[in-house]
């Protein structure tokens, strides 16, 4: 990647970057949801999402990774930005294939990536418009320039996006009218994801509360998103137009705009919302800390006074649950390379690995996959079904899996002292040493680490630490 002229200046987005403040606002989530639908309707992106992405199975994890990644891309420090851009490019370079109709897709495709940036820009402008504060000409131009800079950061140039806002609208309308399709990914997002979002980490222990709120919030989120999409697209995709949906959508956007204007800044920041949803994410005491503490106590009381579930102890995952929650990362009902790649991707993202380490990790996973395919795929259809995995799990662990554990140990053991100390552990699992560490020592030796990883991956022993990493 050759640095463009813009990139050589230290902070390309400037100290008062619109984009940087935008991504820190929680309401940008509305725009991102809308943009995701527009992206998914682009046939190539839709196919890539369906084939590889874990967003249906682990939307919260995906959300957090996306957020971190965006913030890194907008970091004032040039090295952080470039590093993240390189990482994303590496990550996307691994995603390619063909959809069920046999059309090729490739996540590194320049036109598709330009469209992603375009949808985010258009959705941000729409978010302002629907919030009752339309951007003036200069502000729109500036925002557009910043989005083009993001594309340039990823691609090396921004040639696939029109140079000015004036030329952008015809480009956008043209794609909406002629390129977008009713892809499977669109249907999955609108009708499956919103209705079946798994509980955010905070509510994972109170499934009843989550199911009740989701039953209301899921359809509402879908209706809001649909109502905010461009009219011609809704027509072409034959999306349902529910009465009242437009009013609801306007209410949501207006409410979000008012909230971000009237409430204290740190209440409506993305960080606060993320820490509210996911206690592991919180970095310091935020404004929601007190609320979350009280909510945690209320939830604890609720669990204590509701009738106790039976005593049988889930030390071992049921094979089905293990398959669905850990192995089948893309949620399509069988294991294939994208599932294992998603695990490797998650680990690489979390540990922020350099290229050689990332390469090693992916190679180890690839070797394991070849082994699984050779050994377990009895009907030779290129994927391993639940039954095939279950039938063979007694003969596991295989050499390939041991290799994965070995490499995982190496890349986690940053200081190469052949032991994983509390800090390294924290980085991998985002939690302190706790009950999982039953040995007498307070560090993990290689053999203990490998043993625990193997017993987790073969579904023999439940581990909250690994569950937090891979589910």
């Amino acid at each position: 990647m050759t640095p463009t002229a813009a990139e050589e200046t230290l902070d390309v987005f400037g100290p008062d970057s619109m984009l940087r403040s935008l991504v820190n606002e929680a309401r940008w989530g509305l725009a991102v949801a809308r943009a995701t639908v527009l992206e998914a309707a682009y046939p190539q992106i839709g196919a890539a999402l369906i084939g590889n992405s874990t967003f249906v199975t682990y939307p919260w994890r995906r959300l957090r990774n996306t957020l971190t990644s965006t913030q890194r891309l907008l970091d004032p420090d040039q090295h952080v930005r470039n590093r993240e851009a390189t990482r994303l490019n590496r990550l996307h370079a691994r995603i390619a294939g063909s959809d069920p109709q046999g059309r090729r897709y490739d996540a590194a495709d320049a036109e598709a990536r330009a469209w992603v940036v375009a949808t985010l820009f258009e959705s941000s402008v729409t978010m302002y418009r629907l919030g009752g504060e339309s951007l003036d000409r200069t502000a729109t131009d500036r925002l557009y320039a910043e989005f083009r800079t993001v594309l340039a950061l990823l691609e090396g140039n921004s040639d696939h996006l029109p140079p000015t806002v004036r030329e952008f609208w015809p480009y956008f309308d043209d794609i909406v009218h002629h390129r977008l399709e009713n892809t499977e990914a669109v249907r999955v997002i609108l009708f499956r994801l919103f209705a079946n979002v798994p509980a955010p980490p905070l509510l994972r222990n109170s499934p009843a509360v989550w199911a009740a709120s989701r039953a209301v919030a899921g359809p509402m989120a879908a209706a809001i998103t649909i109502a905010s999409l461009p009219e011609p697209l809704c027509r072409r995709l034959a999306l349902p137009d529910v009465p009242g949906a437009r009013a609801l959508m306007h209410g949501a956007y207006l409410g979000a705009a008012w909230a971000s204007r009237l409430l204290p800044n740190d209440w409506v920041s993305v960080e606060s919302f993320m820490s509210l949803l996911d206690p592991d994410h919180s970095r310091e005491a935020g404004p929601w800390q007190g609320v979350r503490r009280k909510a945690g106590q209320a939830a604890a009381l609720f669990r204590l006074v509701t009738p106790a579930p039976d005593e049988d102890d889930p030390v071992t995952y049921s094979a089905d649950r293990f398959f669905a929650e850990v192995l089948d990362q893309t949620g399509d009902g069988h294991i294939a390379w994208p599932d294992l790649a998603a695990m490797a991707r998650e680990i690489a993202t979390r540990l922020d690995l350099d290229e050689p380490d990332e390469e090693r990790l992916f190679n180890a996973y690839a070797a394991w996959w070849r082994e699984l395919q050779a050994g377990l795929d009895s009907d030779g259809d290129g994927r391993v079904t639940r039954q095939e995995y279950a039938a063979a799990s007694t003969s596991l662990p295989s050499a390939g899996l041991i290799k994965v554990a070995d490499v995982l140990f190496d890349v986690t053991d940053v200081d190469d002292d052949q032991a994983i100390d509390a800090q390294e552990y924290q980085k991998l699992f985002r939690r302190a040493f706790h009950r999982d560490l039953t040995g007498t020592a307070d560090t993990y030796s290689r053999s203990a680490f490998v043993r625990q990883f193997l017993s987790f991956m073969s579904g023999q022993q439940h581990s909250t630490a690994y569950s937090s990493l891979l589910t």
Partner: protein
Amino acid sequence: MPRHVACVMDGNGRWAAQRSLPRTAGHEAAETAVIDVIEAARSAGVTWLSLYAFSTENWRRPAGEVDILMRLVRRAIRKHAPALHARGVRCRFLGMSDPRIPSRLVQDITDLMTLTSDNRQMTLTVAFDHGGRRDIVQAARSLIRTATPAEQVTEATFAQHLPYPDTPDVDLVIRTSGEQRISNFMLWQVAYAEWVFPQVLWPDFRATHLWECLDAYRRRQRRFGDVRRPTTTTGEES
């Protein structure tokens, strides 16, 4: 009035044997005593109460007994959590590191600790899967990990590495059933504790017995090793 009272709840098995009941019936009967003592200690003005519920050595008991004990603890926690919370008791569990503790019990214990974490009336520490030596070894480890120079290690700095370092020294230990042993209980914290050994078995232990023990404590002179004069009289002025 002692600030920190600890009870070694001994005699459940003998209580059951005297009545030709299975040992577990003794554990079941112990629940009433526990609740009675918590309430009596709280209203008497004791601000720290510790109960020795299960030691690291207790895992050697028959698996069936351990299993039932775990169920009893879980049932008791679920039953009394709201009342404990309403009375402003902060609950903590000391020990709790063995993977054999059922995960649902761990969940309930965590919930109880979360629920009551802001209470300040009294702190109830339940030593569960606890061993006094293990705590000291853990503290030593944590001290070494912080790379503290040897000459800076004092009793005070060492104590900072023990679990729940805000726990004050134990003033009075009550061991029921007449047995006179320490049994690896909060070894560091009981260094200067007064001990009383009432004959009553734990399931029969009630508020009145606790008052007798508190009274016995008041009549003792605590010298903390000095011979010339009592450093603290626990006598009538308190």
